Each structure stands twice: as structure tokens, then as C-alpha cells.
């Protein structure tokens, strides 16, 4: 049992479950990265701030935070939206993932949150598919990955 006014760390799903705007059982304190001070850092063109260290689900978690009727919600929503497109993050992710020069992109990727990493991978895939086509590998027939794991059956099993 809990004392009224006590402060606890709980998982997001639990906080969401307990939350009820009418009954006010709980109130949620914003993690530092979504608070005022950090938001200004972003607005001042955060370039490639290490979001992974802060997150690693900066956008996803930030969006979920909006469930808790915090008066700062509009500012939070603005900040994460702007982080996605007003900084150089999008450009950097796009250019690095789509550029074929085999440069070491690991330093950049380390600073991306999970959503951005997935995006980076999408860019890489586009590039890899192109390069694979360019090498002529696209016309080679390969077994689908779905099928590769099927066990080989012996004739005796089949005939029964």
C-alpha cells in the first residue's frame, strides 16, 4: 500500500493504467529530457544530440507521455516534432544511410534513438538493394528466407 504523496518509479504501461483524468490517482513527473531546459537545447538546433543516451525511445516515449494531462503537453509535443524535422537529424540520417562511400556511420547511429535507427536502416536497405542490383545479384534466384528453415523430409516419412 502507498502513502498519498509518495513518489515512485513505475513502468509506463502501469502509469497509463493508473491514470484517470477525473480521479487523479497519480500525477506524472516528466523525465528530464522532456523538461523545459532540455527543450531549449533542441530548439537551438540540437544537430545530432545523443538521443539514444536520453531515450532510447525518445519519440515514442515522448508521445506516450502526452497521455498524462500535463499542462506542458503542447510544448512537449512541439519539441519532439521539431526534433524530427527542424534540426539536422533528418538530413544526416538520410545522407549517411544513402551514401555509398563506406564511411563509418557508427558514430552517428549511436546517437540516434530507436525510431531514427529504424529509419537509418530503411535508408541503408534502399542503398543495398540498389547496389545489389548494380552488381547483377538481383537476377540470381535465391531461396526465400521463409523456406530455408524447413527441415528436409526423408522419403520414408512421406510415404508412411
Amino acid at each position, binding site marked *: 500500500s502507498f502513502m498519498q504523496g509518495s513518489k515512485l518509479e513505475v513502468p509506463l504501461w502501469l502509469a497509463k493504467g493508473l491514470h484517470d483524468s477525473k480521479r487523479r490517482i497519480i500525477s506524472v513527473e516528466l523525465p528530464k529530457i522532456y523538461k523545459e531546459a532540455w527543450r531549449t537545447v533542441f530548439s537551438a538546433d540540437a544537430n545530432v544530440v545523443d538521443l539514444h543516451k536520453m531515450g532510447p525511445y525518445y519519440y515514442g516515449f515522448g508521445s506516450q507521455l502526452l*497521455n498524462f494531462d500535463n499542462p506542458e503537453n503542447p510544448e512537449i509535443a512541439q519539441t519532439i516534432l521539431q526534433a524530427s524535422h527542424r534540426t539536422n537529424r533528418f538530413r544526416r540520417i538520410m545522407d549517411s544511410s544513402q551514401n555509398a562511400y563506406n564511411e563509418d556511420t557508427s558514430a552517428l547511429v549511436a546517437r540516434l534513438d530507436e525510431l531514427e535507427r529504424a529509419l537509418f536502416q530503411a535508408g541503408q536497405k534502399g542503398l543495398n538493394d540498389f547496389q545489389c542490383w548494380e552488381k547483377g545479384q538481383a537476377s540470381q534466384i535465391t531461396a526465400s528466407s521463409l523456406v530455408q528453415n524447413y527441415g528436409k523430409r526423408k522419403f520414408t516419412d512421406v510415404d508412411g
Partner: protein
Amino acid sequence: GDLGPFNPGLPVEVPVWLAINLKQRQKCRLIPPEWMDVEKLEEIRDQERKEDTFTPMPSPYYMELTKLLLNYASDNIPKADEIRTLVKETWDTRLAKLRLSADSFVRQQEAHAKLDNLTLMEINTTGTFLTQALDHMYKLRTNLQPSESTHSQDF
């Protein structure tokens, strides 16, 4: 459809797949398309570098045709190496332009973009990335609406 007649020494138009096949069997010589020429390609490359918009390409399949012909019939194509380089340079310029365009579109959070004269090959190389990125931004934008129904966006 019907093809032919095939008379020795006389050029005839056939589908690309057949041309490549016959060439591989050493039964013919391929004649490159008119645009697959150093001067013409230099012109295209230079225009591409100069203009902000995309140059209309002589074929919507310029990359594919270049690859096929240079792979299977480079002996029939004068200055094949130069041609390969010129096409690659043009491709690189076009893709860089596409990324620049995408960045500007995203920064300004535009609703529509119209990009003329892109070929499918170019669209496919950046397409998955772009649609995914724009989709995420769309979801983040819906966060701005205060109505109840938009609160739980699953990522």
C-alpha cells in the same frame, strides 16, 4: 508479338531481352540508343548539375539500359567506360538533388511535393526511407492535436 524479318547485315528493332539473348549467343551486334553517346550524356550531366529541377532523361530506364548494354555488349558501344562514368555522375547528381529536395520539404513541413522527371529506379532507391520518415512525422504531428482520440500513438 511478331519480330523480323531478320536479314543479315540489316538492323532490326527487337525487345531488349531478345537483343541481349541473341548477343549472348553471339548471333548479333547491338546498336546502342542514340542517347548513349559521350557528347549527349555530357550535355545531360551538365544540365543536371546546373538546374535545380530534374532533367527529363532520354529514357525512363536509362540506368537499367546502361547497365544491360554495358554488361553484355560493351564491345558494341564506343567509349563504353566514359559512358558508364557519365551516367553514374548524372545518377549521383540526381539523387543528391532528390535528398536536398526531401530535406527542404521536411524542414518546411510541406503538404505536397511534385517531382517531375524522376525515374522509377531513383524513386525506389529513396522511396522506403522517405515514406517511413514522413509517416513518423505525420504521427508526431497528430500529437499536437489535443483531442482524446489521438493520445495513444503506438510506435
